[in-house]
């Protein structure tokens, strides 16, 4: 009786050893980087964590195909290293000797990746299934690119500034033209005399361009007396 039990046990363990080994068919390598992800809050990887992992994989398989009856005992782990990496394989629930095809397992894990990650407080980068490539989420793109909005704001400010300056320049010129024609008309009538020195009306001499020299402008005789 004892011998039969021992034989059965050894057969089962040999079978499972054959099913789950590195690079076995339908086996996947998993790598965890707990210390990188959690730093001081890192938990140790022990048998309880392995149990949780098996449970998550079983849950994943059940969720993927609703008719699946995967048990925790169907998930086999082996070659656990200090890195925290190991291989696992999922056996068929009806027959313990065959493994579920790798593509099914991959699809199931892809579908439920978030749940698995959050169970271990890890992310896609720190809980790696080595043969299963992750689908990266694209960045959020607003409907109008942000830069166009800023561009539009700046452009409208600049154009408004240009238009304002040009229009005010035109208005100033019109006013000056009107003034000069008025003055010409008055000159013709001889009503206004404008003092001129060297061909320049004296008003312009009061502009910032000239300095009034104290020596020569000390008295009111700016022009040599006749």
């Amino acid at each position, binding site marked *: 009786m004892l011998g039969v039990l021992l034989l059965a046990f050894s057969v089962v363990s040999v079978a499972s050893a054959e099913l789950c080994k590195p690079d076995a068919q339908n086996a996947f390598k998993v790598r965890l980087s707990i210390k990188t992800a959690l730093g001081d809050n890192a938990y140790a990887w022990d048998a309880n964590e392995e149990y949780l992992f098996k449970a998550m994989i079983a849950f994943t398989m059940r969720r993927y195909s609703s008719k699946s009856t995967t048990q925790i005992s169907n998930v086999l782990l082996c070659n656990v290293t200090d890195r925290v990496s190991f291989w696992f394989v999922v056996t068929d629930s009806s027959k313990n000797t065959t493994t579920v095809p790798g593509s099914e397992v991959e699809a199931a894990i892809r579908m439920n990746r978030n749940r698995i990650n959050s169970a271990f407080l890890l992310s896609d980068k720190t809980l790696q299934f080595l043969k299963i490539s992750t689908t990266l989420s694209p960045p959020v793109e607003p409907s109008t690119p942000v830069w166009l909005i800023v*561009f539009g704001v700046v452009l409208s400010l600049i154009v408004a500034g240009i238009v304002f300056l040009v229009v005010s320049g035109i208005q100033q010129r019109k006013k000056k033209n009107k003034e000069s024609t008025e003055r010409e008309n008055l000159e013709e009538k001889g009503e206004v005399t404008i003092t001129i020195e060297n061909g320049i009306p004296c008003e312009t001499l009061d502009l910032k*361009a000239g300095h009034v020299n104290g020596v020569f402008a000390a008295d009111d005789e700016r022009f040599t007396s006749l």
Partner: protein
Amino acid sequence: MEKARPLWDNPLQFVFACISYAVGLGNVWRFPYLCQMYGGGGFLIPYIIMLIVEGMPLLYLELAVGQRMRKGSIGAWKIISPYLCGVGVASVVVSFFLSMYYNVINAWAFWYLFHSFQDPLPWATCPLNSNRTGYEEECEKTSSTQYFWYRQTLNISPSLETSGTVQWEQALCLILAWLVVYLCILRGTASTGKVVYVTASLPYCVLIIYLIRGLTLHGAVNGLIYMFTPKLEQLSNPKTWISAATQIFFSLGLGFGSLIAFASYNDPSNNCERHAIIVSLINSTTSIFASIVTFSIYGFKATFNYESCINKVILLLMNTFDLEEGSLTADNLSEMKDYLMAAHPQEYAQLSPQLKNCSLEAELDTAVQGTGLAFIVYSEAIKNMEVSQLYSVLYFAMLLMLGIGSMLGNTAAILTPLTDSKAITSRFSKEVISGFVCFINCIIGLIFTMEAGNYWFDIFNDYAATLSLLLIVLVETIAVCYIYGLRRFEKDLQTMIGRKLNWNPSIPSVGWHTGAAGDKRLPQLRPGSDRAAGGLIHHVHTPGGTPNFHKEETEEGKSLHCRMNTENWIGKDLTHTTSDRALLEASSNHYL
């Protein structure tokens, strides 16, 4: 009725305009590179020597010519000798070339500035590839910042021959850049004078912020030590001295006619000697200041890259040999590598092509200059800082201010001769001429927004202005010294500034350029020769450059007073005003 020549509102505007023009992108992206290549702290020695020997005299020369002749470059050289107006035309043409391609840099700065308002910054991560399993291949091979620059900004084609199409985003930014320039030069000195307050001072604010931020970055000290350790053996390399000379030369923007244009809007009694010294000193100080900032950023980036490299190696070893996390650190890495090589030789041999030798020196040695430094290295450093959007906005706003300040000078060099010419101003108003120049430049500048545009940019950057400027300034110095007459020029300067010169500006530069001894007479009081001109002009100390000549004793001095109060002094009507005849005959006038 003669219209008064527009003037700067106050001398400060003039100084700010010159600073804004001289302090440009070259101070930020060329000087640190030269420092690194030619001996670190030791490069400062040839740099300062060249500044004193070459930079200040030539700057003084140009400012004095502009202030005295009160015309743009073509008119000023025509006054010196009608055969020399070609020098002025050459300056205008070179300025035209420069403004064609220089504004593209402002367009790029706008592009980066607009993209800085996103979180995360677009150059921080690679975009995903089509089936979303990883990052774009091109981006993986290089880096996200390089990808953003070469692919998303420039969309660069493989070679110059494949021109590709005009990138509409870059074209829009270029049009915006030209509109900004047009807005600033629209009213001539009235508008330019206000704008230069901002363009001259904002870069310094940003540089100070970056200095504080840069020095507190992790690893910045590595960069600073690397930069400032003088490698004095480089001083024996002639290239060091040549680079220092060319850097001073191009940094000050000599020969373009911009300085002549700016100075022509000066009050004739402005103390341009003092301003020349101030501007050149500020320009060089800014270069050194900017290189401190750049090197702390370099140090930060190099340390960051070095540490990521080490981390990658550690991860690779851990994954391959399934070692416990935390067993491999940066400190024990070399010992562990030896141990692993001994313990698992075959696997280690398989792995060794991927194991890179990380070296901080190698990272620091990657000297970069030009657009690569400004847009790739800096943006890479910025993306790793906290609050990166803020620093990014500040940085690209600073680049914009520097670029626009220089553009104002360039366009002034083109527009001043055009607005001086009566033939053109009688038909078109100033706004129309400025608009026309901006429009032409914008259309031609669209070449640089094509896919092959960056190659064209490099061609223009390397060849458009370099040799021509050296020739132009050489002819300028010969013209002022020998054709106009050094003594006459000295006298003009003395009457403008109002005091004796303490060093002759042109002689050191002539000696530099021609290599000959030149005319080394010093400007002492030479009673004998000056008496022929009608009397001595005594040394008069004029604080602030205001014409306070009432201490003058000579007839010449008195006649000078009258002319100071009108617009017609010396410039245009020299030959027609009889009171000037004495001065004319005395100064051995050669022309007309």
